[in-house]
């Protein structure tokens, strides 16, 4: 059970389901509005979380998201057991993508996801082990 004045929310991100990718960010967004979080923080959360969620679907095999929200800010943990990221520095560069042609046809793969996530968070930690998975922790201040 969450401590007082904090709320924890959990989302499963299903494997390979493009139509459902974005459900977590959209649900969280609605709840943040109900909580009275500032529109500016909501904008950042929805952009960063959506990008992270879609990466989990495209590049990994889905996973889960844990959100913890308090008056001071949000902590978002995105965890997957996908292939992992080989070179994190390279992956976060604008325009870098390993997306296949097929994915690009769907409009993804511009290599802007991770840069957008970095830009819309106050802090972001990428933990990744090739062959094991990736955990991205994002902080957004209020």
């Amino acid at each position, binding site marked *: 059970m969450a401590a007082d004045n904090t709320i924890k929310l959990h989302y499963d991100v299903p494997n390979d389901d493009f139509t459902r990718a974005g459900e977590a960010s959209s649900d969280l967004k609605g709840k943040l509005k*109900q909580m*009275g979080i500032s529109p500016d923080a909501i904008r950042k959360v*929805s952009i960063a979380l959506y990008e992270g969620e879609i990466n989990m679907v495209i590049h990994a095999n889905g996973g889960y998201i844990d959100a913890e929200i308090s008056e001071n800010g949000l902590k978002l943990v995105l965890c997957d057991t996908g292939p992992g990221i080989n070179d994190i520095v390279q992956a976060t560069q604008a325009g870098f993508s390993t997306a296949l042609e097929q994915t690009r046809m769907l409009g993804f793969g511009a290599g802007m996801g991770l840069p957008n996530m970095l830009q819309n968070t106050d802090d972001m930690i990428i933990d990744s082990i090739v062959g094991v998975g990736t955990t991205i922790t994002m902080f957004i201040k*209020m």
Partner: protein
Amino acid sequence: MENFYHSIYLDKELCKGCLNCIKRCPTQAIRVRNGKAVINNKFCIDCGECIRICPHYAKLAKRDTLEILDKFEYTVALPAPSLYTQFNNIKDINLILNALLGLGFDDVFEVSAAAELVSEATIKYIAEHKEQWPIISSACPSIVRLVRVRFPNLIEHLLPIKAPIEIAAEIALKKVTEKTGLPRNKIGLIFITPCPAKVTYSKEPLGIEKSEIDGVLAIKDIYPLLLEALKDTVKEYEDSPMPELSESGKIGIGWSVSGGEANGIVSDNYLAADGISNVIKVLENLEDERFSGLNFIELNACAGGCVGGVLTVENPYIAQTKNKRLKKYLPVKVSSFNNRATTVYSEDVDFDWNKEIVYEPVFRIGNNVIEGINNLNSVEKIVESFPGLDCGSCGAPTCRALAEDIVRGEASDTACIYIFKEYFNFLTLQLSTLTHNMSDASDAGNSIANLEQSLTSFFNKDAAPPEKEEKEEKKEKK
């Protein structure tokens, strides 16, 4: 908080509490309490969905009747272009406009003519405000109201230009004042509307201080009268040429169907969505900045565009076909800042919005963030205790909506028939224990005390006494 006037209302007598509307409302504004629908006026955006769905015609829209013409010395009809698509075999818009005069109006000025000017102003605005891309159309009042309560980050993307109905009213006013010399209060500017949202707009517009529109008639109300007037008009001009009153072309007429407004801005980088649930999806995606490279977003709450308004008579898709036929022989546009009569009057009309739109966080469940977080925790906990069927029997559209109502202090968990059943079974069990123990005097005392306690806690659960609701529910089932 201001501007929460609504044209949508409930006729309590007609409402059967059938629950059909609660799930259809896009903002979850409706609850059924004590057997009758109740609209939360902070949530409602006057989209008209509940009018569309109610099988008992209990949801209605306020509007004026033709008698309003008697209140003024000189009246001008401002027909929405969707009116033109309601008739069979009418190829000339002038016929409809002349028939409107036959209804008793002194003059007529087309909203579609003003729309062509708004299209021109929009083109200019888009080109000059790249930082605001994508710009979201603001002509549908329900969309503006929806953005205001639900999409705070998109308010700055709304096109800050007056809607065609307002520009039409302002131009008509200038024209008539010059022609008749009458004071403002003797001139009646009467809009002919396809939807309730524009009635709401005329009373409490967003983006501007006050609308010049003096009254609003519904297309479906004047339709039968207009059919008669059309016959008379045809007869009247059998041997003489009919006065040419129309001042609009393809662009202006096109505004009545989804995609028409975007068509008028001559751009390929636009998106047009219609139907309130589609619109909400687009707004959600826009908020996550999922579209890049678009400069204009046209949104219409009604499926098909304004021709799908609940105060029209024709099927919206047939209306779309008729719209195409009407446009066939028309020039691209007639009204423009550079030509004809409208120019003279539009010259000193101010097209820009003059009032800021402020985010109204009506969906908040606390007075501050801490309260919001704690209340949401309570909501989550209550939701877990519900069966998750979203059956609607409690009068709320979803289990979550009921949980939110409980946390807001507006409902009790016994409104849920499943929870109610559990309590009921529990009480029955205690009662049977009591009867069983009656033979043994010492245990009976204990059981009575237990039962009394359960009963007290059960009935205290409800802020509003549950008895009434129960009775209503039982009646419904018979």
